[in-house]
């Protein structure tokens, strides 16, 4: 395995999920999206452009 060198440099950035409430990144993403959907449904967020 002479062509495989030990890793000394970062290859990607990973954020450890916020764990204060014991929730994973996935769950935060779902909750945030559902909150946004609720805000759209009740009319707080309107006409989101693209």
């Amino acid at each position, binding site marked *: *395995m002479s*062509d*495989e*060198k*030990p*890793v000394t*440099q*970062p*290859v*990607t*950035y*990973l*954020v*450890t999920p*916020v*764990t*204060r409430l014991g929730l*994973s*990144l*996935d*769950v*935060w*993403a*779902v909750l*945030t*999206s*559902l909150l*946004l*959907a609720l805000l*759209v*449904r009740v009319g707080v*967020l*309107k*006409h*989101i*452009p*693209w």
Partner: protein
Amino acid sequence: MATIALSSQEAQNPLANVVRYLPGVLLLAAIGFAGKLLEQSINGYAKAHHLIIPNIEYVLWAIAIGLLIANTLTIPKIFLPGIGTYEFWLKAGIVLLGARFVVGDVLKLGGISIGLVVLEISGSLLLMTALGRLFKLRPKLTTLLAIGSAVCGVSAIIAAKGAIDADDEDSSFAIAAILALGAIALVTFPLIGHALHLSDNAYGLWSGLAVDNTAESIAAGALFSDAAGKVAVLAKTARNATIGFVVLGYAIYWAGRGQAEKVKNKGAFLWNKFPKFVLGFLVISLLVSVHAFNKEQVGSLANLSRWAFLLTFAGVGLRTNIREMLKQGVRPFIVGALGEVLIAGLTLGLVVGANALWKL
């Protein structure tokens, strides 16, 4: 690999978190928005001057600008935590994209996707394992490459690393190979798709089945067309949903050989590894199907999803450091590349077959 962890003090203070993530998130937004402006400006110029120029989507511009910055400049540390949030935007974007699918679409395309995913995963695991043995890679590195290429790239490798007690070096090799191959797929897949005149649905399905990392898979789909990007998300989400089962299988295999801890509660293990954003996607899709949102609100949700993906694509470019990938060694990359070419061929055959059967 750099893991940017929150100190307990920062975790306690929401304002500190905002300050910590804000610069990088703003950088993602600026790059993504620059990509969108470039697309619009070039198209506007071509239209005004009656020029025929191929439309280069904002996706490619955002990735290209990110790549250029990451590979020519040293990104100040202050931006790194926010850049890492691209995973969050990716998942939020997928959940909100549920607004563009009614349940009927999910059942039809999702059903076809699940059938193809089972074939793709079986074929990929067998292929990568055979190639790993042929090239005499370390067995756990082979396992990580097999899981990464069969299921969902980096997330699957990270999930499997702990479950099979693989070392950091093996997981870094596997992640580097998967990311490098994902970057190549971004360029090659749309070209092949156009050359073969694939339909949006067929190409999106292929991209979702064959490109490993979720962000690159969706970007490769969106580079072909907006509709293809949508289908790529569905196929990739179906593939991601299997992560728990594949990792559990390998965890049991390595525990049986005395080289990993035994899985005590299989149900809890599966739930722990299951990507929860799949459920969020289904919930939004269900709400849209029962008309919980009017047409304009559905449009707003779809646009929120596009903005989330805009940040994601900028992050894909920014975290792709070509120099660092080249440092990871040649052999895992060769195994990965050979495997990916074979998997791309296999999945293309599956998609063409499905297209002939069900007129995708």
